[in-house]
C-alpha cells in the first residue's frame, strides 16, 4: 500500500495517542504513535510519515526540537503541534519553526478530523508543487535539446553551404549577386545568434550560476562581446570607443554569462544607433565596486517604455522596428543579479541611452 497516507503522532499522554488513533480508525490512514520525542524521531526514519502531530510539552527532548529535526530530515513532511496549554505564543513559535498548524488540547474528534484532512491536503499540494517543478525542469532541458538539434543544426548546415557556395563562386558572382549572398548570410547569422541566445537562457540555470564562479577580469567578457558584435558595428559604420582603466581588480563571476550580458547591451547600443555614430564603453572603479558603462547616441528609450525594458519579451512601443528578441535585457538583469550586481539605465529619446552595470570587487565579496 504505497499510496496510503501515513500519520505519526508523538505525545507523552497515552490517552491522547489512543483517542487520536480511535478517531482516525477506518479512515484509511496508517497511524503510528510514539510516547516521546526520541522514539518519535527514530520512527520517522523508517516510517516516512506524510503528517506528524507533535506535543510541545513532553519529558525528554522538547516538541520544538522534534519539529526542527523533522524539518531538517524532510521539509516536505507536514507538522502540526499539539499544545497542552493553548498558549498562543508557543503555537506561534512552533509555526515560525515550520509547523503548519496547531491543535489546542482538549480537542473534539471533529476538530482533530478537520485538522488532519487539511494537513494531508497541504502535504498533497507540497508534493504536487515539487513534482511540477521537476516536470518544468525536465521540460526546459528537453526544450533546450530540441531547439539545439531541430533548429540550430539545420540552420548551421544551410549557412555552411552558403559559405561554400560563396567561396567557390568568388570570381563568378557580380556585385549585385554578392550582395544577395551577403544578405542571406547576415540574416541566417542573426537567426543563429538568436537561437544561441535562447539556448543559453534555457540551458543556463541562473540559480546555479554561482557554482561556476571564478575570479575574472571584467574586461575579458567585454572584449569578447565587442568582438562578437564587431560585424554589426562595421556594417553600420559605428565606432566603438573603449576606455578601460588598467589593473582593475577582479570580480567573482562566470565569464560566459557575463559575455552574454555585454553582447546584449553592446548589441542593443549598436542596433539602436544611427549609422556612423559613436558608442562609448568604459570601466571605472568606485570603492569596492566596478562600473561598466555603455553609452550610445541612438534613438533612446521613451519614459513610457523605460520601466518595462528589463521584462521578458518587451520590445517597446516606440514603433521602431529593429531586429530583437525581447529577452536579452531580462536575461542580462538576471545574470547581473546572480553576480550580486545591478544594472541601470538612463535614457532620453532622440539623444541616446546609457547602461551601467555595477559588480562587486572579488576580494571584498570574499571578506563578507
Amino acid at each position, binding site marked *: 500500500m504505497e499510496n496510503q497516507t501515513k500519520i505519526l503522532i508523538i505525545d507523552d499522554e497515552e490517552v491522547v495517542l489512543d483517542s487520536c488513533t480511535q478517531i482516525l480508525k477506518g479512515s484509511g490512514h496508517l497511524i503510528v504513535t510514539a510516547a516521546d520525542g526520541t522514539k518519535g524521531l527514530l520512527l520517522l526514519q523508517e516510517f516516512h510519515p506524510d503528517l506528524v502531530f507533535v506535543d510541545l510539552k513532553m519529558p525528554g527532548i522538547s516538541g520544538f526540537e522534534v519539529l526542527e529535526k523533522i524539518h531538517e530530515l524532510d521539509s516536505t513532511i507536514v507538522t502540526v503541534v499539539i499544545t497542552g496549554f493553548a498558549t498562543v505564543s508557543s503555537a506561534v513559535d512552533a509555526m515560525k519553526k515550520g509547523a503548519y498548524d496547531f491543535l489546542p488540547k482538549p480537542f473534539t474528534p471533529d476538530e482533530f478530523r478537520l485538522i488532519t484532512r487539511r494537513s494531508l491536503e497541504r502535504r498533497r499540494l507540497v508534493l504536487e508543487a515539487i513534482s511540477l517543478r521537476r516536470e518544468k525542469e525536465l521540460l526546459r532541458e528537453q526544450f533546450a535539446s530540441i531547439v*539545439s538539434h531541430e533548429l*540550430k*543544426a*539545420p540552420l*548551421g*548546415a*544551410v*549557412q*555552411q*553551404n*552558403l*559559405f*561554400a557556395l*560563396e*567561396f*567557390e563562386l568568388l570570381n563568378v558572382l557580380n556585385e549585385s549577386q554578392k550582395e544577395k549572398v551577403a544578405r542571406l548570410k547576415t540574416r541566417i547569422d542573426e537567426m*543563429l545568434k538568436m537561437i*544561441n541566445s535562447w*539556448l*543559453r537562457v534555457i*540551458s543556463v540555470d541562473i540559480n546555479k550560476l554561482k557554482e*561556476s564562479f571564478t575570479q575574472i577580469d571584467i574586461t575579458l567578457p567585454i572584449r569578447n562581446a565587442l568582438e562578437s558584435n564587431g560585424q554589426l558595428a562595421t556594417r553600420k559604420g559605428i565606432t566603438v570607443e573603449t576606455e578601460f582603466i588598467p589593473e582593475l581588480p577582479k570580480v567573482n563571476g562566470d565569464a*560566459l554569462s557575463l559575455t552574454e550580458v555585454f553582447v546584449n547591451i553592446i548589441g542593443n547600443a549598436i542596433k539602436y544607433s544611427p549609422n556612423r555614430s559613436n558608442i562609448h564603453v568604459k570601466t571605472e572603479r568606485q570603492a569596492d565596486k566596478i562600473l561598466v558603462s555603455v553609452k550610445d547616441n541612438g534613438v533612446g528609450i521613451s519614459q513610457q517604455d523605460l520601466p518595462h525594458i528589463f521584462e521578458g519579451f518587451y520590445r517597446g512601443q516606440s514603433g521602431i522596428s529593429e531586429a530583437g528578441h525581447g529577452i536579452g535585457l531580462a536575461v542580462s538583469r538576471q545574470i547581473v543579479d546572480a553576480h550580486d550586481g545591478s544594472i541601470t539605465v538612463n535614457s532620453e529619446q532622440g539623444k541616446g541611452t546609457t547602461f551601467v552595470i555595477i559588480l562587486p570587487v572579488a576580494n571584498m565579496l570574499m571578506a563578507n
Partner: protein
Amino acid sequence: MTKKLLMIDDDPDFVEGIRSILTSADFEVDVAYNPKDGLHALQTKPYDLLLLDIMMGRGAEGIMIARKLRKDVKLRELPVLIITGMREQIAFLFPGEPVHPRFVEIDELVEKPVEPKLLLEKVNGLIQAAEAKKAGK
C-alpha cells in the same frame, strides 16, 4: 603533396559545406558519418588532420573518439580541428576545465558554421604545427 583529411560528422549537409571548401583548396577529404566508421578509417589510413564533430548520435560521441586518440601512441600526434555546434557544450562536458579542452597534443576548436577563411587558416595552421613538431623530434 596533397594533404589528406578525415572528417567525422553525422550531418551530411553540413559535411558537404565543409568538404567543398577544403577540396577547392586542394585538400583530399574522406568522410565518416559516425564514430565507428571514423575510428576504422583512422586506424587503416594515414591522415594529416582530423576534423571532428562533438555532438553526434546520442550525445557527445565525438568525445569518445578524442579519448581513444589520446590513448593511441601513433594517433596522438594527429592534429585535430574540433568543429562543434556550441562552445558552451564543451565547457559543460568538461566542468572546471577551460572552454578549450586539450583533447590531443595539437588541436583547435571552432564553432559551426565556419567561415571559409577561418577554416583554411585553422587547417593549415594545425598541419604546420604538427609537421614542425615532428621535425623537431
